[in-house]
C-alpha cells in the first residue's frame, strides 16, 4: 500500500510540475480547442467528468491518429460518433427504439488548410508518456474480410455499438468504416484490448480477447477503410 501511496503523491507532484508542460501545448490548440478537448491528461477520471466533457480527449492524439487523416478531417469534419459525445446526452425515446436527437448535435469547427496543417502538427506532438498504447503490437497479418466480419459481428458482438458499413450497426460508438484511415493500427489493437486503460470509464467494455483474435479484429478494421475507397 505504502509504495503505491508514494507513487501517487509522486505522480501528483509530477502533474503539478507538468503545469509548465500544459503551457507548452501549442497555442493554436490551447486557444481554439481546449474548451472541448482535454489536451493534457485530466486530473479526474470520474463519471462526472465523462458526462461533462464536450469532446473526446486529445492528450494522446500523437499515438492515436494518422496525420494525413487529421489534416483532411479538420477541413471537412464528417461525423465519427453517430450519437455524438456523449451518446446518452443526445438520444431520446422514439416511436419504438430510441433515436438520435440530431438537433442537439452541433457541427465540428472547420479549419482552413493552413490552420488544419498547423493543428495536425500540434496534435501529433501530444504523445502519451504512460505506455497506454502498445507499440508494435499489431503484426499486420491480413485476415480475410469474411472471417474478420464474423468476429466483429457474430463472435465478439462489436457491431452492437459500432458500424462497419455506413448506416448499419450500432450508433453509440465511433464508426469503423473510416477507422483504418483515422487511427494507427497499434492504437486500434490497444484500445480493443483494454479501452478502460486508455479512456477510463468509457462505455466500451474491457473484454477478454486473445492476441490472435485482437490481430484479426485489428486487421479487419484497418482493411475496412480500403474497401470504402474502392467505392
Amino acid at each position, binding site marked *: 500500500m505504502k509504495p503505491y501511496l508514494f507513487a501517487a503523491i509522486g505522480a501528483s507532484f509530477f502533474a503539478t510540475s507538468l503545469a509548465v508542460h500544459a503551457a507548452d501545448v501549442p497555442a493554436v490548440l490551447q486557444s481554439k480547442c481546449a474548451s472541448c478537448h482535454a489536451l493534457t491528461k485530466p486530473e479526474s477520471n470520474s463519471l462526472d467528468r465523462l458526462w461533462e466533457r464536450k469532446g473526446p480527449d486529445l492528450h494522446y492524439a500523437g499515438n492515436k491518429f494518422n496525420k494525413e487523416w487529421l489534416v483532411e478531417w479538420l477541413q471537412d469534419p464528417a461525423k465519427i460518433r453517430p450519437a455524438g459525445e456523449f*451518446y446518452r446526452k443526445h438520444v*431520446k425515446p422514439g416511436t419504438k427504439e*430510441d433515436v438520435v436527437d440530431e438537433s442537439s448535435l452541433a457541427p465540428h469547427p472547420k479549419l482552413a488548410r493552413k490552420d488544419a496543417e498547423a493543428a495536425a502538427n500540434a496534435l501529433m506532438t501530444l504523445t502519451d508518456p504512460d505506455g497506454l498504447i502498445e507499440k508494435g503490437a499489431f503484426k499486420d497479418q491480413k485476415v480475410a474480410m469474411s472471417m474478420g466480419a464474423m468476429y466483429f459481428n457474430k463472435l465478439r458482438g462489436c457491431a452492437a455499438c459500432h458500424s462497419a458499413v455506413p448506416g448499419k450497426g450500432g450508433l453509440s460508438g465511433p464508426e469503423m468504416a473510416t477507422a483504418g484511415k483515422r487511427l494507427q493500427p497499434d492504437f486500434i489493437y490497444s484500445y480493443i484490448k483494454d479501452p478502460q486503460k486508455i479512456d477510463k470509464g468509457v462505455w466500451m467494455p474491457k473484454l477478454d480477447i486473445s492476441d490472435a483474435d485482437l490481430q484479426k479484429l485489428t486487421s479487419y478494421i484497418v482493411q475496412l477503410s480500403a474497401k470504402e475507397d474502392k467505392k
Partner: protein
Amino acid sequence: MNSRNSISFSWLTSIGLISLLAFMEPAAAASDDSFEHAERLYDTYCTQCHGVNRDGNGVNSVFMSVQPRDHSDAKGMGDIPNSEIIDVIKKGGLAANKSVLMPAWGGVFSDEEVNQLAAYLRHVCKCGSDQ
C-alpha cells in the same frame, strides 16, 4: 473455468447479495437515493442497448439480431434468478447461454457496483427477489 468453481462462485455471490439486500432494505424502502449510483451507471453503460426507458429499445437495438432484455418487464425479469443477473452483468450473455451481444462488464465495475446494479434492476422491474 471448471463447473465446480463456478458453482461455488455463484453460491458465494448469492450469499453476498442476500446479505447486501438485507443491508439495503430499509434505505431502499425509504427513498430511491440508495440507487443513485446504480442509476448513473445504468444511464452511462446500459441505456445504449437497453434504452433510456429501460425497455430494451436502446439506440443500438435497431440493428441487433438479438433484442436486449426489457428491464421493465416484471414477468420476464422476475423469472431470472439474482445469481444469473449478477453473472450476466459480470461475464456477459455467454455465461448464461445468452447472446454475446450482452457484453461482460466485469472489467469495468467493482463487485460492489455489480451488486448495486442487480438490486437496481429489481427496483426497475418491481419484481422478484431471489429464487
